[in-house]
């Protein structure tokens, strides 16, 4: 029984945007750091922020530390089907978002993995999907130039967008096209000739699909000859095309159209569904001035008045809803033992609401606007997950849920005070009159009624109150 630390509107906003949901524990970290601005800086540098959860939880799923050939060998030996390796990875990512102290790093890894999307479902890229995520995380707060190179030349991307089977004789257009349209310049900034040249430049990065899964650069597969793409020109005379790949990706990363596309996607993710042209331009200029470095752009975004004004204006995606619900309810995951274990089962909860992490079926990444995540199916499934977690009904294995009476702020409290405490604990703000009224309606208790541990509200109905708070626009938005 403790009162929740007071959130300031800005600390709550920052934690809901650059973290996976404000919690009293996170507020204490913000307070210890000396305020939201210092907390954010600490998160960017990582100095003094533990990454222990990432390291220990990595051992929860054996496939996460295996190479592509090893995952395939286990599949053939009947130990684990290869497609389960991607589920392991999705679950690990969710667990990290719930429990990691490096919230901003996780949020940016999420952002870039969605921008440079390789689905974490089945198919050939399963052999390299966890490795791909690690490569993205390593560069998530570095430069886009390095990040882009790591992603485009990674075997997971090669498998997904068919660059792994592209040859000098017959370049496959898939990755060459999406690199221009999705990953860098965006629509309307390239021609069909650019697509062809882009595909030619990228030839050579091979993966032995469905054979031994080795990967590497094969000069014999590289198309040789002059290339021109969107202002990039190169004689491309060397069969070892790794240098031209590097130069080409550097050119794209520093292109003003790429800057605007990255800036707009960041603004969509972290500010609002309709960011102003001025904000996008400001972020794009910051990106170009700092040689595609990510941190200065994030600092500029957080410092911008439009960011501060946007609190609560983003709808939580299915995975964000599930993660934030675990976080605010204080549900603790433990090492999973089977499919019923919470750290495994939570993946189905995200799918039920609408989409598992990295499960979007197309290369453009999941949509990030309210319109996509506001369907009746989403709303009803969110209510369903909230009930399951608030009541501790499911999942119940390898997990701890807070006991109902732990939500009492004092030995005795009036009902309105209990609701206010729940609102401060779950939402980081006092209860609105609407929430007070909804809670009274749900359990049929008056505002002034005194509640203690023997009261029916605590003994039977606490989950109904918690669900009522979670089923609100304030929790389903960020």
């Amino acid at each position, binding site marked *: 029984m403790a009162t929740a630390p007071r959130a300031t509107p800005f600390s709550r906003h920052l934690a809901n945007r650059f973290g996976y949901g404000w919690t009293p524990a996170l507020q204490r970290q913000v307070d210890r750091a000396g305020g939201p601005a210092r907390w954010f800086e600490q998160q960017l540098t990582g100095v003094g922020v533990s990454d222990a959860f990432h390291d220990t939880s990595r051992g929860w799923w054996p496939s996460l530390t295996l190479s592509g050939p090893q995952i395939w060998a286990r599949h053939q030996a009947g130990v684990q089907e290869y497609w389960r390796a991607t589920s392991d990875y999705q679950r690990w990512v969710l667990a990290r978002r719930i429990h990691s102290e490096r919230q901003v790093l996780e949020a940016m890894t999420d952002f870039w993995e969605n921008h440079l999307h390789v689905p974490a479902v089945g198919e050939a890229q399963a052999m390299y999907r966890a490795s791909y995520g690690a490569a993205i995380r390593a560069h998530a707060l570095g430069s886009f130039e390095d990040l882009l190179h790591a992603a485009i030349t990674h075997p997971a991307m090669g498998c997904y967008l068919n660059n792994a089977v592209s040859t000098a004789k017959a370049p496959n257009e898939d990755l060459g096209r999406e690199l221009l349209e999705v990953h860098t310049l965006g629509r309307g900034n390239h021609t069909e000739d650019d697509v062809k040249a882009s595909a030619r430049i990228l030839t050579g990065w091979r993966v032995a699909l469905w054979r031994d899964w080795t990967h590497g650069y094969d000069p014999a597969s590289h198309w040789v000859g002059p290339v021109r793409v969107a202002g990039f020109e190169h004689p491309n005379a060397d069969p070892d095309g790794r240098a031209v790949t590097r130069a080409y990706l550097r050119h794209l990363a520093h292109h003003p159209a790429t800057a605007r596309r990255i800036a707009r996607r960041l603004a969509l993710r972290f500010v609002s569904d309709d960011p102003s042209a001025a904000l996008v331009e400001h972020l794009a200029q910051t990106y170009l001035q700092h040689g595609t470095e990510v941190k200065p752009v994030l600092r500029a975004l957080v410092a911008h008045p439009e960011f501060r004004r946007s609190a609560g204006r983003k709808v939580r995606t299915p995975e964000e809803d599930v993660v934030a619900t675990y976080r605010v309810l204080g549900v603790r995951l433990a090492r999973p033992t089977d499919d019923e274990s919470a750290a495994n089962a939570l993946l189905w*909860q995200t799918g039920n609401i609408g989409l598992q992490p990295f499960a979007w079926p197309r290369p453009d990444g999941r949509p990030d606007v*309210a319109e996509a995540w506001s369907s009746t199916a*989403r709303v009803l*499934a969110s209510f369903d997950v909230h009930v399951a977690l608030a009541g501790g009904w499911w999942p119940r294995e390898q997990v701890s849920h807070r006991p109902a009476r732990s939500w009492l702020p004092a030995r005795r409290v009036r009902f309105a005070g209990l609701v206010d405490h729940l609102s401060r604990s779950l939402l980081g703000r006092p209860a609105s009159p609407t929430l007070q009224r909804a809670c009274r309606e749900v359990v049929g208790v008056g505002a002034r009624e005194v509640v203690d541990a023997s009261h029916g509200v605590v003994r039977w109905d606490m989950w109904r109150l918690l669900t009522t708070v979670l089923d609100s626009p304030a929790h389903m938005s960020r």
Partner: protein
Amino acid sequence: MTLCPPQGPTPTATPAGAGCCEEYAGLTRRGLLRAGGLAAATGALTATFGATTTQTAYAATRSAPRTLVLLSLRGAADGLSLVVPHADPVYYAARPRIAVPKASLLAVDAQFGLHPSLAPLLPMWQQGKVAAVHAVGLPAPNRSHFSAMEEVEDADPGSSARVGWLNRLIGRDGWEHPLRGMHLGDAVPPTTLVGPRPTFAATSVERVEVAAAGDDDGERGQRRLRGLRTTWGGAGGPLGQGARSALGAVADFRPARTSPEAPRGGAVYPDSDLGQALASAARTIRADVGAEVITVDHGSWDMHTDVGNLEWGDMKNKATDLAKSLAAFFTDLGALGDQVTVVTVSEFGRRVKENANWGLDHGHGTVMLALGGGVKGGYVGRWPGLQNTVDADVLVTTDYRSVLAELVTTRFGASSAQVFPGFTPETVGVFRA
């Protein structure tokens, strides 16, 4: 099924109690296996709290005498594999490995034949209930999946407002109800449905329920619904609209949710996402909850590699799933099928020439299939003739909007100018009233 979650305040009914909640947990596990969840576990009905569970925010739903099912083949489906122009010699020259041999084609006429994996549709074809419109697509080539899909689904090039053509179709008169336009199979509605008119989405029929406020939840459930209406009554934005549509329509959807799960007429749906979505569609249509428009997505047609041949490959697999699912759907519907028209749309087609990876890169024209009520069966459209160059596309001779405009005018009495603004449709001859 017993009453779960428990109602309190008796000790045996505490949330952590044994008995009913073990059953509850067990049911949940079974739900999990079907990727379902709590809603599936609490879906049984009791007579006591029937249709009174929710006071709808909408006027009562009304019957939809006809239903349009829009099936989107996502990723750009290769029309030349589905409906093969066997008489065009370029087809075989351009596709030495992946062409479908003439001898294996079905429903062969002088120009075309169907991929053999479409065999489940052959009985309907022979009854004249299936049409294939070839060389259809956007008026100008657009090799971007994302902008082509937007163009196809918004279908209003003159406007920057993001309103789908199906939202305009259900907005053509004063009858407003979320169940009038619904998306089945997943939670993200397609652009076709987006717009000012409220719509509905359901991942499966069973899951259309407010958790802990269903048929078994009695007075506590009523209290919960009251609280949810208070919570969402004044909420803004798309989420507010989605929540109010859900709370307002869930009771009206109840006849579909509680309808028998078993398909009729001996229909067997494939255990695929498409099969399950169409099974949900059949139940929804049979329950007559007012669904005039239903959208269903079928993904993974983006075959840059492994189109394959008749022995193996993605085309064989996808075409089989498509045909089995659609055949089961119409078998399941029986005589009701005459009220239901399915039309397939894909954002574009693929190149004429196969690539080095047994695949096909992005092209232009493709094929649309139309099945069911009002369809004049057979091969339709003007064949442009193929070219065998690296970049050659199937040229588009019929704008996809002409097909859809004919459908909405002949079958739904809609105005083409309202649904497809600024577009002058040509007569295609694929639908009749």
